[in-house]
């Protein structure tokens, strides 16, 4: 079984970070994991993306052509990755800042006003975690408990004060 996930947004929105959280949650579950960043000459304000594969068997091709799930945090990412979700897959969209000018009816689209929810929670920079929460129930190989452990592992020591905030953002996202 495999989860192939694409994540995209503005540089600075925490796309690589949520990818890392997914990857570490897979490590905790003793799965095979592959995290690939886009590593072109991106700069702040440009788009960044990464792909994550979780698998209970060996991962041969690390290239995701059609993903099982995705998160797009901004307009250019939405336009670029809408066509990269396989039929029957799931795409989580930050509807606070994405205008859904195109639509597909062969995939499940989850609209989350993530920036607004993040602001309500008191930190505009955790829209990424809200979207992570929205995608989480649709993945096969990871879940809230594993992601929680991953967050403790990745941010625990550096910024313990952000742990609860991140977990609340994920829970909010899971309601969508």
């Amino acid at each position, binding site marked *: 079984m495999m989860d192939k996930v694409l994540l995209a947004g503005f540089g600075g929105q925490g796309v690589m970070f949520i990818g*890392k959280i997914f*990857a*570490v949650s897979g*490590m905790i579950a*003793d799965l*095979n*994991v*592959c*995290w*690939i*960043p886009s*590593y*072109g*000459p991106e700069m702040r304000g440009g788009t960044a993306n990464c792909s994550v594969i979780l698998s209970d068997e060996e*991962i*041969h*091709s*690390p*290239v995701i*052509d059609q993903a099982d799930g995705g998160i797009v945090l901004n307009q250019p990412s939405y336009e670029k990755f809408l066509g990269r979700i396989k039929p029957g897959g799931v795409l989580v969209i930050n509807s606070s800042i994405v205008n859904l000018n195109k639509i597909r009816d062969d995939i499940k689209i989850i609209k989350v006003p993530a920036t607004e929810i993040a602001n309500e929670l008191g930190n505009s920079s955790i829209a990424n975690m809200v979207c992570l929460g929205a995608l989480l129930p649709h993945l096969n190989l990871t879940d809230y408990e594993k992601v929680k452990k991953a967050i403790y592992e990745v941010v625990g020591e550096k910024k313990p004060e952000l742990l609860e905030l991140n977990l609340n953002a994920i829970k909010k996202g899971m309601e969508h």
Partner: protein
Amino acid sequence: MSNRVLMKGNEIIGEAAIRAGCKLFFGYPITPSTEIIEYLAKNLPKAGGTVLQAEDEIGAINMCYGAACTGTRVMTASSSPGISLKQEGISYCAAAELPVVLVNVNRTGPGLGGLGPTQSDYFQSTKGGGHGDYRLIVLAPSKAQELYDFTLEAFDLAEKYRNPVLILTDGFLGQMMEPVELKEKPTSPEVDKSWVVDGARGREKRIIASYSLTNEIGEANNLRWEAKFNGIKEKEQRWEEFYADDAEYLLVSYGTTGRISKSVVLNARKKGIKLGLIRPITLWPFPEKAFIPYKNKIKGIVTVELNTGQMIEDVKLAMDCCVPIYLYRRQGGMLPTETEILEFLEKQFKLSTEEV
């Protein structure tokens, strides 16, 4: 599995070098290899080593030359244009028979090129690269664990043969994070170090130099190196076979496309196409031996490469051109999908699913 950690490919190379006993690293940063020097700058001093950012790549490779003369384990890493700058020094290291470990995180070319995955430096890596008639041992990892294992082994191979060893990878493998088991390094085999220059007090002087203007001595040197390279060819060819046993068609591919090709093989098998893979692990010596059993057995080959067709020449030689051999390639930093490779194979060999 307590030693299983999630690391970036480039950092894995750095960690493996430390565990292999590398004590000196000389380099000059260049994307997409920079994490290697960054990681080592942070961690090699803790292991009693030194990292020096040289004034440029030429300085770095010549520092490696000097360090290797003392018998110290030494490494440098760069990406394509930087490796081009090092070529003169690499040729001198080969001539002086110095065990230097080189890493090329291949970026696209020619010229400045781009940062995406590519295999455009296959010729440069395997056919000499610098001037003169020498060879590097070239290892081509395709996943995190191999980045670790091959880096560990590169130091042993370099010392065993007194020859520079090149690890050829790309930005995709370098930037990717995958689990890696940081295995304990096996004990290195005992090697003759009676050639090192580490202070001559109490013993005969030793000279390490690339200097012989007498033709007779020049030929003797060339013959000695040739014998060494022939020995490496005989003993060190490495490859992996994947569903090759009963295959009617073979893919041949290494590194990043080597692992993509494994998925292609599995997809083809699901469709009833008997496809297998030979994945060269040593690019030099090229694993000619791998092809011998398949010469009169298979119907055709597709090499999958990220260049205009470089390794395909070695595959044709290894197969004596006895079956049709085609190239499927992407370039400029683009990777092929599993689907497009299989479609190409089906088209070349007229394997539409109806016929199978």
